[in-house]
């Protein structure tokens, strides 16, 4: 919960069953009466869940030498996404907070998958034309290669002068077993329209290649799929304010959430501080980077604020409407909240959840 730290040992070679471990954890912390979710920090600093024998084994084997285990209350953790970068990015805290508040209102309760991290997602479904698709590939911390090729080609556009052939960039080939293929969201002959929010029109193949590679740790490609039959069919959004969303196949965000997230994605590109590793002095190439400490601090702060947040939620559900108002008043200037330092987040937290 960010409040208590315990250290105990496990046999590395015989980790045993998950159930036993769960019991052990619950017992050690004297919280046997609460439902908790257990997660661990992997080598990349990502928070991953422990909820079955397999991922428990994986967690133990990947620990070197310490396995950092995080324990959260279950109802809280359900809404909190596990996944890449969740620990190392403080800005995500805000995303999650808002996301959560809105989701409650929409009465939509889709938990995150429990034993894998996201590799891709479709985003901004509601603001793009139906013929387009914006796909986000999470390369970070994944062993698979991105694995696709692009080529030059021509596409037909409708212009005021009639149909016109224009040069375009297309996906030419997928590497079998690569990340792009495994998502199923990209296919050969899909036309690439944007890379991380920047239009590729007028750019050469080499420029687009360089753009994609430069953004490869967090690549967002907008494509016009060659096969338009698999597109998400969206209901008319006449009752936008109701937040009722039917695109459950594609996204778990409600309408407003998607809007908020959309803002955030743009900002995130700016703010995804790839923390360059700085090694002070001649540390004999000991690769225990300083960043690790930072991660721990972040994680603790995060859990802490989440917990506080949760408590307040329990007490004041009826005040959700005002929360929403508050949030929407914040929306126009998300950057303002983003540039706040760590301390600022904590100060801001109570204000949001009042």
């Amino acid at each position, binding site marked *: 919960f960010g409040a208590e730290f315990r250290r105990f040992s496990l046999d590395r070679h015989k980790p045993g069953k998950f159930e036993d471990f769960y019991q052990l954890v619950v017992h050690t912390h004297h919280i046997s009466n609460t439902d908790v979710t257990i997660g661990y920090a992997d080598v990349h600093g990502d928070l991953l869940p422990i909820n079955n024998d397999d991922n428990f084994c994986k967690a133990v084997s990947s620990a070197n030498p310490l396995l950092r285990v995080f324990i959260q209350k279950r109802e809280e953790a359900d809404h909190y996404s596990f996944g890449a970068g969740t620990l190392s990015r403080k800005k995500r805290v805000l995303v999650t907070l808002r996301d959560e508040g809105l989701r409650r209102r929409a009465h939509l309760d889709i938990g995150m998958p429990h034993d894998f991290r996201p590799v891709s997602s479709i985003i901004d479904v509601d603001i793009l034309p139906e013929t387009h698709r914006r796909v986000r590939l999470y*390369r970070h911390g994944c062993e698979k*290669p*991105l*694995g*696709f*090729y*692009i*080529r*030059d*080609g021509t596409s037909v556009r409708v212009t005021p002068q009639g149909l016109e052939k224009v040069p375009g960039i297309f996906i*030419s*080939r997928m590497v079998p077993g690569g990340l*792009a293929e495994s998502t199923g969201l990209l296919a050969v002959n899909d036309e690439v329209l944007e890379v*991380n929010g*920047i239009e590729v029109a007028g*750019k*050469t*193949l*080499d*420029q*687009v*290649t*360089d*753009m*994609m*590679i*430069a*953004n*490869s*740790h967090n690549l967002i490609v907008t494509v016009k799929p060659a096969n338009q039959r698999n597109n998400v069919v969206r209901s008319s959004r006449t009752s936008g304010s109701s937040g009722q969303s039917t695109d459950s196949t594609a996204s778990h965000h409600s309408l407003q959430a998607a809007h908020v997230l959309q803002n955030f994605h*743009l900002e995130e*590109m*700016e703010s995804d*501080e*790839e*923390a*360059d*590793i*700085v*090694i*002070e*002095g*001649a540390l004999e190439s000991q690769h225990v980077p300083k960043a690790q400490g930072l991660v721990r601090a972040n994680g603790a702060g995060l859990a802490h604020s989440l917990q506080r947040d949760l408590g307040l939620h329990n007490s004041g559900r009826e005040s959700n409407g005002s929360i929403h108002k508050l949030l929407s008043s914040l929306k126009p200037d998300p950057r303002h909240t983003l540039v706040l330092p760590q301390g600022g987040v904590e100060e801001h937290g109570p204000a949001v959840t009042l």
Partner: protein
Amino acid sequence: MRRFLRPGHDPARERLKRDLFQFNKTVEHGFPHQPSALGYSPSLRILAIGTRSGAVKLYGAPGVEFMGLHQENNAVTQIHFLPGQCQLVTLLDDNSLHLWSLKVKGGVSELQEEETYTLRGPPGAPPSATQITVVLPHSSGELLYLGTESGSVFVVQLPSFHVLDNRTISSDTVLQWLPEEARNRRVFEMVEALQEHPRDPNQILIGYSRGLVVIWDLQASRVRYHFLCSQQLENVTWQRDGRLIVTCHSDGSYCQWPVSSDAQQSEPLRSSVPYGPFPCKAITKIFWLTTRQGLPFTIFQGGMPRASYGDRHCISVLRDGQQTAFDFTSRVIDFAVLSEAEPAAAFDDPYALVVLAEEELVVIDLQTAGWPPVQPPYLASLHCSAITCSHHVSNIPLKLWERVIAAGSRQNAHFSTMDWPIDGGTSLAPPPPQRDLLLTGHEDGTVRFWDASGVCLRLLYKLSTVRVFLTDADPNESLNAQGEDEWPPLRKVGSFDPYSDDPRLGIQKIFLCKYSGYLAVAGTAGQVLVLELNDEAAEHAVEQVEADLLQDQEGYRWKGHERLAARPGPVHFEPGFQPFVLVQCQPPAVVTSLALHSEWRLVAFGTSHGFGLFDHQQRRQVFVKCTLHPSDQLALEGPLSRVKSLKKSLRQSFRRMRRSRVSSRKRRPAGPPGEMQAASTKAERTGLQNMELAPVQRKIEARSAEDSFTGFVRTLYFADTYLRDSSRHCPSLWAGTNGGTVYAFSLRVPPAERRMDEPVRAEQAKEIQLMHRAPVVGILVLDGRSVPLPEPLEVAHDLSKSPDMQGSHQLLVVSEEQFKVFTLPKVSAKLKLKLTALEGSRVRRVGVAHFGSSRAEDYWEHHLAVLTNLGDIQVVSLPLLKPQVRYSCIRREDVSGIASCVFTKYGQGFYLISPSEFERFSLSTKWLVEPRCLVDSVKPKNHSRPSHGNGTGMGPERASGQARNTGSQNDGEEKKAGPVMEHALLNDERVLKEIQSTLEGGRGSCGNWHPHRVAVGYRLSNGEAE
């Protein structure tokens, strides 16, 4: 990120940007690539060179340059100046004629294309009827005689290009006037020669290829004389008085024919085969020039014995028993003899021979005994050995400048003392505001020092590093090794010599300290030489130190080239830069970065394996650091560069041979030219289509740490900054690698009095791994006022403000993909500008430049000048990293142009547009070096020519050509006026300053003409090795 994309809306900033930045390609330095034609105007004293890409370049006195480009990018085959006028006619290989003229506009001359014309025959005539072989501009300046393949001579009126049909001299007309025996023997073939009588404008000489020469009377329209040669005719020349003609022939002979009596001779007065008796090649052009002293000069091209010297490119000069065959290393395109321009003068009195070879221009002094060459002030062959790197140093102190010139003048002793004979026009450009040096490193291990201050790029000094090493070639081999009684009397001339003894000698990196005269030079085989300027010749041994960059790494094997063997014992060095220490990197991989700190007496060097620091005062290695990644196989085994370059050089030499076999004839074979062209373009197009069938695709893959060549050291940088804590600053060395790692070492340099006693110590202080892992191309430290740290010794010489050591310093790391500012000493990221993620372009070169405002005299800013892989040039502001302006400069396909770019510290730059030419560009409104010159058409000397009244009859002006001198004025007239005024002001300022400084007797004048002493920027990039 979005905010960077948005164009600035601040009107004040936009206005300021206009005052600071302006992009111009100002002048091309060096020798035109693939020249194809030569023209000379004796009255203007201006030389013209046409190229295969359709450019026409005019050169007069140093600084007088013009350039024009034909719209059709066809080769220029002939250039003729209209006698006594500022006009010239060019013939392209598509058989079109173009009239250019030099017009005065706003006080300066401009080259403009006036008219284009293609000769059309009567309907149904074969194309050869109008295929032009010879052009003769008549001395009246109003008529052009065009000899064609069919044997007809057309008369065209200028400047309208109106064909005077009734004056056409067809072969049938000529035939009527010939006696029976000539008529029977000859078929008329193409016109090979057209010459006007030197005294009588009413007579012209027509030479046909089968050997018939007639003198045609234009008034009477009849043949006055005819001569029948037994051999194929190549060319004809008149003697100055018109009493003798000399013909040259395809069998290597030339004949003299007197034109005195009406009695027709069937035999020449004298005939000779100068290089007989064995079969000889054709003499393609001949001059017969009389002198006051009596004996005439005979100058001819070719004629060498076919079997033994048939592959030589020679021009022979004969006079009074003296004979020399000047032997050129590349094909001779054409030549001209500079002689008395006054038509009424009794003798030719030739004084210079101008030879345009394929790779250089050679001028030979014919007045001095021995016929020595004259050193050209421009048109230098930059590529006499291939350029491997370049380095620019701005604002050279006068003292160093004079010492370099003094060292260079000793090397130029073999040149004639004659003044440059081509001196037409007047240069109006203000004298350059400062002295700039451009240093080029070459494949043969030489470094050439060029005066890059003005329009003319002049060779000052040549430094060879070959003497330090043992090579196969004998260093004492002189150019004139030929014996006395050698026949033919060949003499090698020119400097173009593309053959390198050993590719390992190639220079890869150069670093010159302009204050101390220390120079560091690094080469292909891991050799790093530190040199010192010495005004005396000296003989000493070069100390050799080995730097093992692999250190204790095990199991690595270098499969690349061997290191160069150093010459043991003392070596004799000429006055100039003399090496005193050689640091040999092990393994001997290409040196990829180099930095010299003359104040601390340290030199840092990096290869693909690591980097090291050397103390050249104590001649001791300070440390080495291996940057290799254990999985980096490629770097360990060597790039097999030697094999590759051998293959490449073989291929090149084959190509060269093939090119030289292609007939050097001026014309292409008769045939329908249009059809051939169509066929070739069609072939090209289908070729392109075939290429398109296989689509180009690119793999999208994230970079991983295991990519090869991550250890490749791209940049090295010395800085005195806060590396460890914010209270004490210390010397530091920064190194950036291809894998996005930055290493920082803190240095302890003992104070000057104990400099020799205590060792320099280094300790690794920081290591930064950029997450995006892109190659680091530049590192820079900004002081407390966000001004780049000054160069070493700059503050000591009182040429720069001392850096602000109060405020916090910032570190700027430029990778190929991002610019990033970190705070020091904590190294936390402060701001960044992503380039690749937004535009898909990558940084290729970066340099700090000082931009002065064109309006406010004392206003200046420091910014980064950036060249991307797309050939765009951008200016990025310091320290806020905001893109300011962007111009497209180089074609993105021009990889060698992009790789060769260097920035100066005042917002100019150079890049290679061909192996032999640098294009100079300017980003600054204030610093603009471009030719501004005036050519006078009315020369008082040319009184005898009745041709000046012609200027009024100009046709409608049609400036279809793009002239270089007009190019920079496209932005409007008032803009032009700005810099002119500016220059004038600056110029006065400079003069004042200099006068002042001489009065004071101080050393301070050192080119610091700027009234405000400012910190000049650093050049950041060491760039990548090719």
